């Protein structure tokens, strides 16, 4: 079985790959394509898959091999398909499509080892590009599977006679051996914080989340999703739930039904100032991508993290839309004065309402104004009014029949979600001449007992009001006034039973929620320590290891040294059986044998080589025949050596000395 077919005269390996190893290669190619099915244009994904199958068919029916002309045509069609789907060849997504097309075509013309090697390299790239879309553990697992199959196929092509059981086992062993080195490289390889080139166009993936406009029902939609918006880890104490106002888009413009945020705030940056108390909360936010620039922080952040702007409406904004999970540290003060020192003309724009909209609220404000109520008293009066109005907090408010939705909410249906509350309250304020605006964001969050991260979900989405009194902004949460449970225990407990809240948010599913906590903590661990292992995390880890002060050269040495150790350790189990015979050889070499070796070496110098098959007796006998002058000493050497080596008696130092003397006497 051990003689492979004779390949003469340096000819390349066979030009037809063995079925079983090709099968493994095709499976590996399939596994590399699989994570792309979600975002490749369906036509291209289908044709790449078809070409994998076609190649499998060729193995059975070689006459189906496409001629070169057809391949060229397929290539042209494929590229045209990419251009048609992406409108270009030159962005990232188009590049991935081209890669998939190339892989399919290369497979079709794969017939020897070199082709197969190119195929595996293409697959490696394809696996890598999948991470641009999804870095979930599932995709990671799929990638490992692909890698395993591809390596198994390569091993098979280099040992064609092997069964795939053996090649796949060896591929798995190689991956396991490679893992420690991978971890070292991953931890120690220096990270940069800025991209080397543009990240390419990223189209929105239809992420749900807050938007920069708020119309009735827009936040209520979010409450049906329990997707995680952000996770926060507090360094010290966690503020009470009722204080967890995550500030998001601030809406200063109202068109009668919808509030909207203008990216250029009405207020000038120089006009705001935060006066906060000493007590502050430090935390690190891990924000899921939402394709917008705003970043969430508890009211009010003391300063903006690096690379972000602190806008005059007291919210943090990234310079670019957030298309990937980001992490930032913020320090917030919950007791603060947000001072606004804008000219009166600007402030008047914060009291502007479209003429004639919501006439009943406007009338109410006029009544109060006529009573001489203004300023703080007006706000208190409004709060009292909201508390007494019997407003119902519900996810399923009746549809408004008029354009004046705030009027309808406050006086007719009296049932609404937080955006109705915030909108109506703010309109009332503006109608009363008090500068006011709507703030959207999230309220609350839940500590995951598994990893102690505070998780904020889409169903925590909230809207509240802010009024400007005597030069300082004050938060008023009209929802909390009418339905305190919303703030204290969360949306699911505040809405009436029967409202469509997320399944796991319902109190009856508490035990399921425990499992969700574990699952979320797992996901968070993956995000934090695997995906989120960036420059900052690396720095933290180096610091924890006491390696933060080292320079690049030392770091490089450390990296290479540890890789060497890891390689040695991972391969040592393999090397041991190889080294053992050597060790045994050394151990076996007793004094008599050493003397015998010396004797043999001396004889060899005289041209008398011991044949490997010759024992001591045969060798000495031969010497005695060819060199009668040495016969007596040499024969004695043979006898004594044999006696010492193989005799029953324990080694006698006397005899050993005799052997030494005999050998010394032999002078060829």
């Amino acid at each position: 079985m051990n003689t492979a077919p004779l390949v003469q005269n340096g000819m390349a390996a066979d030009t037809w790959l063995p079925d079983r190893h090709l099968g493994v290669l095709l499976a590996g190619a399939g596994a590399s394509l699989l994570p792309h099915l979600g975002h490749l244009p369906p036509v291209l994904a289908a044709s790449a898959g078809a070409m994998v199958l076609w190649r499998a068919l060729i193995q059975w029916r070689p006459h189906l091999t496409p001629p070169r002309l057809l391949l060229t045509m397929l290539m042209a069609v494929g590229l045209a398909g990419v251009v048609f789907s992406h409108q270009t060849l030159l962005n990232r997504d188009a590049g991935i499509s081209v890669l998939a097309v190339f892989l399919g075509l290369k497979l079709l013309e794969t017939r020897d080892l070199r082709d197969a090697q190119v195929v595996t390299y293409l697959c490696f790239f394809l696996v890598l590009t999948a991470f641009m879309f999804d870095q979930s553990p599932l995709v990671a697992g799929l990638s490992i599977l692909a890698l395993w199959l591809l390596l198994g196929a390569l091993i098979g092509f280099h040992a064609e006679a092997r069964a795939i059981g053996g090649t796949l086992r060896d591929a798995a062993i190689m991956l396991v051996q490679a893992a420690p080195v991978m971890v070292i490289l991953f931890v120690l390889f220096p990270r940069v914080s800025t991209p080397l080139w543009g990240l390419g166009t990223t189209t929105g993936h239809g992420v749900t989340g807050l938007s920069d406009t708020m119309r009735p029902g827009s936040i209520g939609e979010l409450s049906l999703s329990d997707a995680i918006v952000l996770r926060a880890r507090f360094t010290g104490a966690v503020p009470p739930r009722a204080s967890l106002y995550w500030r998001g888009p601030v809406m200063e413009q109202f068109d009668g039904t919808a509030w909207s945020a203008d990216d250029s705030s009405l207020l000038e940056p120089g006009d705001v100032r935060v006066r906060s108390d000493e007590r502050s909360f430090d935390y690190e936010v891990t924000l899921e991508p939402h394709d917008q620039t705003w970043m969430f922080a508890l009211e009010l952040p003391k300063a903006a993290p690096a690379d972000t702007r602190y806008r005059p409406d007291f919210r943090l904004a990234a310079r670019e839309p957030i298309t990937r999970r980001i992490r930032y540290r913020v320090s917030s003060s919950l007791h603060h004065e947000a001072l606004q020192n804008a000219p009166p003309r600007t402030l008047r724009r914060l009291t502007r309402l479209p003429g004639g909209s919501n006439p009943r609220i406007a009338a109410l404000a006029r009544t109060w104004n006529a009573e001489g109520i203004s300023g703080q008293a007006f706000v208190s009066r409004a709060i009292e009014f909201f508390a007494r109005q019997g407003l119902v907090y519900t996810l399923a408010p009746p549809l408004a029949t008029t354009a004046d939705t705030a009027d309808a909410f406050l006086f007719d249906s009296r049932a609404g979600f937080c955006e109705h509350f915030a909108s109506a309250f703010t309109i009332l304020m503006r109608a009363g001449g008090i500068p006011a605006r709507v703030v959207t964001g999230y309220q609350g969050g839940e500590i995951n007992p598994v990893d102690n991260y505070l998780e904020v979900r889409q169903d925590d989405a909230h809207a509240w009001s802010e009024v400007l009194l005597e030069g300082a902004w004050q938060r008023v949460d009209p929802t909390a006034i009418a339905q305190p449970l919303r703030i204290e225990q969360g949306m699911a407990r505040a809405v009436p039973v029967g409202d469509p809240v997320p399944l796991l948010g319902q109190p009856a599913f508490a035990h399921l929620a425990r499992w969700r906590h574990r699952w979320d903590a797992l996901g968070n661990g993956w995000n934090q320590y695997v995906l989120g292992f960036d420059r900052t995390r690396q720095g933290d880890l180096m610091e924890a290891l006491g390696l933060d002060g080292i320079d690049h050269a030392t770091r490089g040495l450390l990296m290479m040294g540890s890789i060497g150790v890891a390689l040695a350790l991972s391969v040592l189990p393999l090397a041991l059986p190889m080294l053992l015979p050597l060790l045994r050889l050394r151990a076996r070499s007793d004094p008599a044998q050493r003397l015998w070796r010396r004797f043999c070496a001396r004889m060899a110098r005289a041209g008398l080589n011991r044949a490997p098959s010759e024992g001591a007796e045969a060798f000495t006998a031969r010497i005695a025949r060819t060199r009668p002058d040495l016969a007596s000493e040499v024969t004695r050497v043979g006898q004594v050596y044999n006696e010492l080596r193989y005799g029953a008696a324990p080694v006698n130092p006397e005899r050993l000395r005799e052997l030494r003397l005999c050998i010394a006497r032999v002078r060829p």
Partner: protein
Amino acid sequence: MLPAFIRRLLSMPERTESEPITIGQRRVYVMPTRQGLAFGVCLAVMLLGAVNYALSLAYMLTFLLAAAGLVTILHTFRNLAWISVSAAPAQPVFAGEDAHFTLLLENRARRDRYSVRLVLGDASTQVDLARQSVTRATVSAPALHRGWQSAGAFTLETRYPLGLFRAWAVLRPAARVLVYPRPRYGERPASTSDAHEGSSNRRGPGQDEIADLRPYRAGDAPSLVAWKSLARSDTLLTRVLDAAQARQSWVDWDALPPELGLEERLEVLAGWLLDLHEADIAFGLRLPGTAIEPATGSAHAARCLERLALFTGRSPIRP
């Protein structure tokens, strides 16, 4: 050919080594192949992508592949190291034929080795070595000149498991082959009763009398087939030569025309001798200064051919 000191530095043997040659770890060289370099370029591009998009999993993938690449160095090395090599005796061949050198590759390890390639000049052969077994690997090289021909340096190499690296070792086992002179048929002296006195009572095989014809048996020399009678009767007959005559046949150096050079002379003698051997006629060999008494059989023929192959006599021939 590398200078001697470099060869020593690379521990490449200059001379034939005593066998079995165990490929110690210091003799194994490992270098990336073209595929390995391409793999490195791929990794570099992948790393750039990982850095640019700050994708942790892309880093991991790249590093895992790089680590697998490093691990394969050891696997490739291990696939070759500690093989014991010894040369099997090579069958003598005639000049102009291919000499087949067989090496015995002993795998003492408790694991199989795969795709070990034995290279000699332009020829190579690839074998798998099962655990704790001896595998024969044969490569051919043209036999050019009569005499002992040494195989020279063999290279044992492997690219297992991924083809990214090539491990090789240069070996000089005592593999040599005896090359007989290229036999030249049909140029024997037309008559033995010529030039030299000493050869007057000896006759070349061409002049043997046909004593009888017997039916052809498989293995009979073509030169003894009675082709003329085949034309007549459609049956293959073999000429049986006069045994008495044959017993006295001498393949004689001096029977050849004096104008022949040394090599041509040996070639003619070889052809002559082979004809006699194939005809199963006892013959002796007479060369200047040496002679082999007439006998029959393969061993005898081989002995005579060896004498021709190793003959270092005078040249040019005295008139």
